[in-house]
């Protein structure tokens, strides 16, 4: 008798499994109720505000940034994805030389999104942006200069 009992038990478990998938299939086929995929270009994905997309440098409306060129981020970066090229800037009033950034180069292709540079920054000059459209046809385009051309240091950051 256990022979038949085994068969019926087996068939029962099979139908149990089919009921689970069936419970999803029919609502899906009729109303797309349980569909979880995101139809990407039409339906924009939900991006949360802390999403680590890429490192950007904050600029205000006068094209001023907060980066003093202290190179803390460059030292903190484990992959060498940040390079700062700095120059001596001469203050026209006092005539004193001052260190300032020429180019804040960021290699997105080498970045592992570990946040160490942003933690290390003493002046909160760089931050995460939630942009995730990184795909390019040229690897060179992934090397970015974070400070905008012609930008300069915001007043009062260094204090």
């Amino acid at each position, binding site marked *: 008798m256990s022979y038949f009992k085994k068969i019926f038990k087996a068939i029962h478990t099979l139908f149990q499994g089919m009921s689970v998938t069936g419970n*999803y*299939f029919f609502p899906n086929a009729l109303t797309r109720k349980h569909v979880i995929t995101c139809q990407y270009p039409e339906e924009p994905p939900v991006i949360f505000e802390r999403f680590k997309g890429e490192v950007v440098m904050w600029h205000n409306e006068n094209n001023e940034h907060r980066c003093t060129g202290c190179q803390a981020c460059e030292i903190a970066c484990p992959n060498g994805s940040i390079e700062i090229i700095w120059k001596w800037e001469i203050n026209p009033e006092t005539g004193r030389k001052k260190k300032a950034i020429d180019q804040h180069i960021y290699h997105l292709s080498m970045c592992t999104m570990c946040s160490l540079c942003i933690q290390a920054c003493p002046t909160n000059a760089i931050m995460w942006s939630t942009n995730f459209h990184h795909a390019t046809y040229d690897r060179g385009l992934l090397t970015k200069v974070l400070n905008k051309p012609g930008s300069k240091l915001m007043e009062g950051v260094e204090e």
Partner: protein
Amino acid sequence: MILTQNIFEYWTQNTEGWLYVLVLALIAALYLTFFAVAGLLLVLMERRVAGFFQLRLGPNRVGPGGSLQTIADALKLVSKEIFMPKFADKLLYKAGYYFVIIASLLGLSVIPFSAHFQAFDINVGIFFITAVSSVGVLGILIGAWGSRNKYSLIGAMRSGLQMISYELSAGFAVITIVLLAGTLQMSEIVEAQRDTWFIIKGHIPALIAFMIFMISGTAESNRVPFDLVEAEAELGAGFHTEYSGMGFAYFFLAEFENMFIIAALAVTLFFGGWLAPFGITDALPGQVFWGLFWFFLKVLIVIFVFMWFRWTFPRLRIDQLLVLEWKYLLPIGLVNIVLAALIVWQGWLFEPLKWLGL
């Protein structure tokens, strides 16, 4: 459109000589077209159904509602390079997929799609299908052997085991119905169900036969839970590992065509083929159309059940597959034949409509 016995006889009744050959070729072309179109549609259906089972949408970009997706895929496969392994046996490698296609085309030729809509209505139709469907495995075997790949070979050997085993119980399930119908001719099996479908008329033995047929049918069409031939988690792609482009597409199409044949056979044997349920459309004009409509509706429902299996169950292991066949399906099938014979002999058929005097 009034058709005589079947398509073959209708077209060839007044032709002779080369015209006769031409007509034969035309019928073959018709069935080849059907083969391709049905294959494409079934692949589309499979993907869509799989999508809904898996909380996805399935193909929905190419064409309205994704309806042209498989055509795009087919075009891609046609344009792909046909790549042959260096040490492959060229003849066997190339012969493989022809065997598979020819086997399923032959099987297709005796399926009655509607009243008289059938290429050949030979009097041993059901026997013919069981015979030719075994040829397909030969294609798998030689294709895999010819491609000189261990994964292919393991898959093909599994396929051989599986086919030889499950042919038996599928055959026994068919014999149960043949007992009830008293004929091997496909069209007559359908006609015999005009009052009541065999699944109802034959009650217990027919139900058991139907379940056995569904299980062994799934096994014969190499689908989950019996897809050990491909078993992508174990063997990569199984017997068609080394095939690319159209070579792969032929195998793929043939697989879906086999599923169609199994479903069509199940419908013909158990669910009254092209007959409408309770004859509700018998009085309407366009009998051929209604026959096709009911036939394809039933076939699609059975195919859907196959898909439901596929997207729910895990895969069996090869020895468990054989245990299922030889320890469960085969003895049950044998007992079932005796039971069916007893029922036919004693006339214990379940015919509620007849009893009600309808």
